[in-house]
């Protein structure tokens, strides 16, 4: 267990080029510190899976040229407007976008966590999404033909789930509270890498109030302590998004040159979070 606790830079080293990496949306737990380390180490050809969407984290990794494939229900910066580097990459055709829909991503991960090959999902039929997915097929309900057709989505098995959480203990237990999409990610992925605001000197599973919101260490391969590790996006219960910084990102990410200068200033030469 001695290697369990490491640094965000080491986590980035252990995410190989081409890996399928599941990411949480900006309102959940984003390990932005590891995303910056991935950019710094020059990661390539990543296959990002938004659970079910990505935001600034995805936009930045795409802009830095780390991403070959993006599998997601959406790329959203919420109130901040369209995601500039994603839009530019989509327009240039420099990334392969696998367009999905939130419940199909959740269901694909649920299939993986159960170790089964697929999961039936309602709806979707009549959407053009279906025409472009060879990992989704329509089927009838084998128990009741009157039920109408269903879509079967293939299991989604990420190589790595990468998340940021408020607390981790030295056994690798990770407290996520009610943000249980991260529990699903950890169950479904082969390995889970975590950064945490604080290392808790105790056993998170021993606390009955915390245990239900805790990812057990059995799923977690490596973790790093990283205060403000989600900056500049927020972390539930801890801090909000750094509004001024995100606006500056948006402004600079509108052009290739501006984005390059952003990376130079905040990623390659990291500054401490405010």
């Amino acid at each position, binding site marked *: 267990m001695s290697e369990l606790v490491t640094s965000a830079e080491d986590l980035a080293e252990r995410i190989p080029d081409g890996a399928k990496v599941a990411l949480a949306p900006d309102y959940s737990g984003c390990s932005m510190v590891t995303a910056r380390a991935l950019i710094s180490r020059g990661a390539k050809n990543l296959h990002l899976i938004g*659970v079910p969407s990505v935001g600034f984290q995805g936009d930045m990794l795409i802009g830095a040229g780390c991403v070959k494939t993006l599998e997601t229900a959406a790329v959203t910066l919420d109130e901040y407007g369209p995601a500039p580097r994603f839009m530019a990459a989509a327009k240039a055709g420099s990334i392969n976008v696998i367009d999905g*829909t939130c419940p199909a991503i*959740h269901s694909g991960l649920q299939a993986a966590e159960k170790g089964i090959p697929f999961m039936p999902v309602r709806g979707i039929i009549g959407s*053009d999404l279906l025409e472009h997915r060879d990992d989704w097929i329509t089927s009838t309900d084998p128990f009741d033909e009157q039920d109408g057709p269903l879509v079967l989505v293939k299991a989604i098995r990420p190589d790595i789930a990468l998340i940021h959480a408020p607390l981790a203990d030295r056994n690798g237990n990770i407290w996520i509270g009610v943000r249980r999409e991260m529990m*699903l990610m950890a169950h479904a992925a082969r390995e889970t890498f975590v950064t945490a605001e604080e290392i808790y000197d105790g056993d998170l599973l021993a606390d009955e109030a915390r245990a239900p919101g805790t990812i057990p260490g059995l799923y977690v391969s490596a973790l790093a302590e990283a205060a403000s590790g989600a900056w500049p996006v927020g972390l539930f219960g801890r801090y909000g998004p750094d509004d001024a910084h995100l606006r500056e990102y948006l402004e600079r990410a509108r052009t290739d040159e501006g984005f390059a200068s952003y990376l130079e200033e905040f990623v390659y030469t990291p500054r401490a979070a405010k």
Partner: protein
Amino acid sequence: MNGEIASSLAPEELLITTVADMLSGLRHVAVGAQSPIPGSAALLARARSDGALRVSMLGSETHSPFTDGGRELFDCAAQGRIDAFFLSGGQIDGEANINLVGIGDYPETKVRFPGSFGSAYLYFLVPRVILFREEHTARVLVPKVDFVSAPGSSDTNMNRTGGPHALVTGRGVFDFDANKRRFRLSSVHPGHDTDEIREHTGFDYDSGEQVPETRLPDGPTLELLRGQVADEVAETYPAFATRLFGAVTAP
């Protein structure tokens, strides 16, 4: 009183109160991403319901009853536990198909939108889906969408319990007739008229001889919106709340 309200009413406030009227009597309304006006409407409807209406708002910590992650909303919808939801589109067509993916020949889109979110599922399962798009132009309201993120109607063999209820824009309100698969103009916002709406709508729709003006909110509703509801909205949409309502106190 009415004149006073009309003169002080911001266009967004009318949209909020109009949508809120469509939510009265419901048990559970869910609000997705990037939806400040629908979110405000849901919170206004909740405030008027004396707590009977449950609001589940993505991004809110106060208004989120879920403890099982992002999937729980979708599981709830499939069980019939969500009565109303909001969808929008970069394009919306006359059969209520919505496009959240992009303009052009997919995957080579000329303009890329954020993505389909949960639309391809929730449109089928939530009985009252309100389409909301402030921009009412022929660019948005098109004869046929370039990409169907979620279809407005389905073949009868689909087990579909949900679908479009209305389309609310910055110029007026349309109802959707599921049998005819067509919109019908049901009201026009003050300051707009039917000719203008026809001109700026890219799809064909039904309309009566006389189309009423969209109903203005009464004084107590507006007071509630600008007070308690404004503060509640600010928790999830601080920039929007400050712009529309001025100083707010997030609870």
